[in-house]
């Protein structure tokens, strides 16, 4: 049984396209006067957040609520977790309360994997960002956004598209998930960063690495700017904020050298003036706000496919739902690493 989403590397091309297509269906719901589907009525989704991330939490919360699930938000701050309760005891508590899915954000890489492979809980685990490891739903919403701008949409992948990801690759879970997912979808990915912010071992990743932003801009269909924390400067990853912005920041001049159709992406929150200037952030080519909206659709699709069983996601659309298969959608649900590494 496939029931978790831990890593973007666990998704096949067909899994990923199914999620994106399902998200398109979900997005249509947002255009209705009543933005709610009955699909997950009676199911309980727990948002288990050990790190503050209001954006991601409310995105998952909105997604679950639009599918009529009951949502419990569990924030580590001010809870028993801050008094030293272990992940295991927290998980056992949630299990006892009957959680069907646990959406987990954790500062330690591998914590969702641990949750999914332990016998602590029986429900689905969705990784909402773990340490510097992965953030698979972010990669999915990024791919969804790219597909809408760079292809004809439903059923398509990103074959042949050139995607450039710029910034703190070393500490970025967004970059890791995107490298996996975008290459699975056929895109060619180039990472751009100062050498200090590229991990040792990157040579085995299925992507190119460049230290020169200007050299790759002109052939990029999408340029994703990652948030660079100012604290990195104090750990000698780069000399000064200004030097970083000069060499690796995206300003209007650089954006002007991108192909006309190319988009600028940012997972947020943005450091205006650091990795991206206000001129670029506020330009129509920047999809940062659109990515937030797409995030809800993607998370609806993921929760639906993990929990929804055999019923069609959207019953009243004129088109047959891609999420529906004659024998039920189970066989096409996203796979998980759980089975593969046993």
């Amino acid at each position, binding site marked *: 049984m496939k029931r978790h989403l831990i890593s973007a590397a666990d998704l096949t091309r067909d899994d990923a396209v199914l999620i994106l297509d399902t998200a398109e269906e979900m997005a249509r719901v947002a255009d209705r006067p009543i933005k709610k589907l009955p699909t997950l009525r009676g199911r309980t989704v727990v948002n288990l957040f050990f790190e503050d991330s209001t954006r991601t939490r409310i995105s998952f919360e909105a997604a679950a609520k639009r599918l009529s699930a009951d949502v419990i938000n569990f924030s580590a701050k001010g809870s028993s977790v801050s008094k030293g309760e*272990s*992940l*295991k005891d927290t998980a056992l508590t949630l299990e006892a309360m009957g959680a069907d899915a646990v959406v987990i954000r*954790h*500062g*330690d*890489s*591998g*914590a969702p*994997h*641990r949750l999914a*492979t332990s016998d602590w809980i029986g429900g689905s685990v969705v990784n909402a960002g*773990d*340490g*510097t*490891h*992965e953030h698979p739903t972010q990669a999915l919403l990024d791919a969804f956004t790219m597909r809408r701008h760079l292809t004809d949409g439903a059923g398509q992948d990103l074959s042949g598209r050139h995607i450039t990801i710029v910034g703190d690759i070393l500490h970025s*879970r967004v970059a*890791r998930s995107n490298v996996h997912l975008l290459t699975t979808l056929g895109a060619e990915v180039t990472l751009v960063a100062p050498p200090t912010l590229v*991990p*040792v*071992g*990157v*040579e*085995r*990743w299925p992507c190119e690495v460049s230290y020169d932003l200007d050299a790759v801009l002109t052939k990029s269909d999408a340029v994703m700017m990652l948030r660079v924390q100012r604290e990195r400067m104090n750990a000698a990853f780069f000399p000064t904020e200004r030097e970083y912005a000069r060499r690796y920041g995206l300003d209007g001049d650089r954006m002007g050298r991108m192909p006309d159709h190319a988009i600028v992406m940012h997972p947020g929150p943005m450091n205006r003036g650091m990795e991206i200037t206000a001129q670029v952030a506020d330009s129509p080519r920047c999809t940062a706000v659109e990515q937030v909206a797409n995030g809800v659709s993607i998370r609806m699709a993921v929760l639906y496919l993990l929990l929804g069983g055999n019923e069609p996601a959207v019953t009243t659309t004129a088109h047959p739902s891609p999420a529906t298969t004659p024998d039920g959608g189970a066989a096409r649900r996203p796979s998980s690493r759980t089975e593969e*590494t046993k």
Partner: protein
Amino acid sequence: MSKTLIRGAKVLGGEAQDVLITDGVIAAVGDELAGTEDAAVVEAAGRILLPGLVDLHTHLREPGREDSETVLTGTKAAAVGGFTAVHAMANTFPVADTAGVVEQVWRLGKESGYCDVQPVGAVTVGLEGKKLAELGAMHDSAAGVRVFSDDGKCVDDAVIMRRALEYVKAFDGVIAQHAQEPRLTEGAQMNEGIVSAELGLAGWPAVAEESIIARDVLLAAHVGSRVHICHLSTAGSVEIVRWAKSKGWNVTAEVTPHHLLLTDELVRSYNPVYKVNPPLRTEADVLALREALADGTIDCVATDHAPHPHEDKDCEWGAAAMGMVGLETALSVVQHTMVDTGLLDWAGVADRMSFRPAEIGRLKGHGRPVSPGEPANLTLLDPAYRGPVDPAGFASRSRNTPYEGRELPGRVSHTFLRGRATVVDGKLA
């Protein structure tokens, strides 16, 4: 007068012979020995007789962390693993940095009776790397400390390390260095490389170990002292030690069983049972370590037996403690990685797991040949045994083994401490 006859064992893997033990001493070795009529007989056909194993690197946790191990449970585990002497590391609570604490550990070892316990003294007060502990007082104490180590922490201050190396020359001591450059390993979780890049776990570069080893062999050469490198884990470290030895410098090194077998690929499971310091490295490192142990560049195997209570491993990777238990599986892992692969014969195992560690620790009465007149510290191994590792059966108080369920060869059938059987037919006597 107590007599035991071990009949038909392959002494150090050689020809089958009988060994007669009388009053704790090896009385005779050979065929058809006289005076054996009243001896208790241990039938040992097909088994290997080795000198009692000596561990230079054991964490017995007492005083302070009796929830994970005590001197008594740790020495029981040692006996089951075929050890007759262990060196108890100094990172206890309180730290073994005074004559009082090392004497306490020494006394607890005497009382246990399963295995001799030789306390290791801390190099610096509180393992803080700032001020030398009273090394002379620990040496002069009843514990007679000759090995000093801040293990768990690196003596990273070059001046402190130099002074320690020089100071212990007065009583033929040795500094056993935990080589880990602290700045390069802040927050480090696993070997830095291909796997860490994928898993997003903070990397622990090989250079953090190698740069300290390079510095310390140069320091040891400069002051004419001897240095011992704990749990060497990288191919680069092997190269540096090989170079230092080629210069004739007084450098010795140990490798753990787990670094001879396991690689960082296992960390993909995020199972903290694989979290250890130094971290599991790559296949290339494992092969280099085996080769170095075979050719003598690495002098000995040391377990770095590091017990932890269940809760310290039953959690997410980042929150978990580092370390693995190893006493009860060490000889099996060495058989599997070194003997069954043809890299080392049983005489070589005797050298790397008994003679050399006893010599490095200047330990009397252990690491001696299987010859008449020598103390009867002996280990009898059934090399044909095959079976899965079952932590539930461990004598250790802790269960944090990376080998649970893994099929490993060999089992210690008997251990003799000065002629007294501490283990009989694989069970504590």
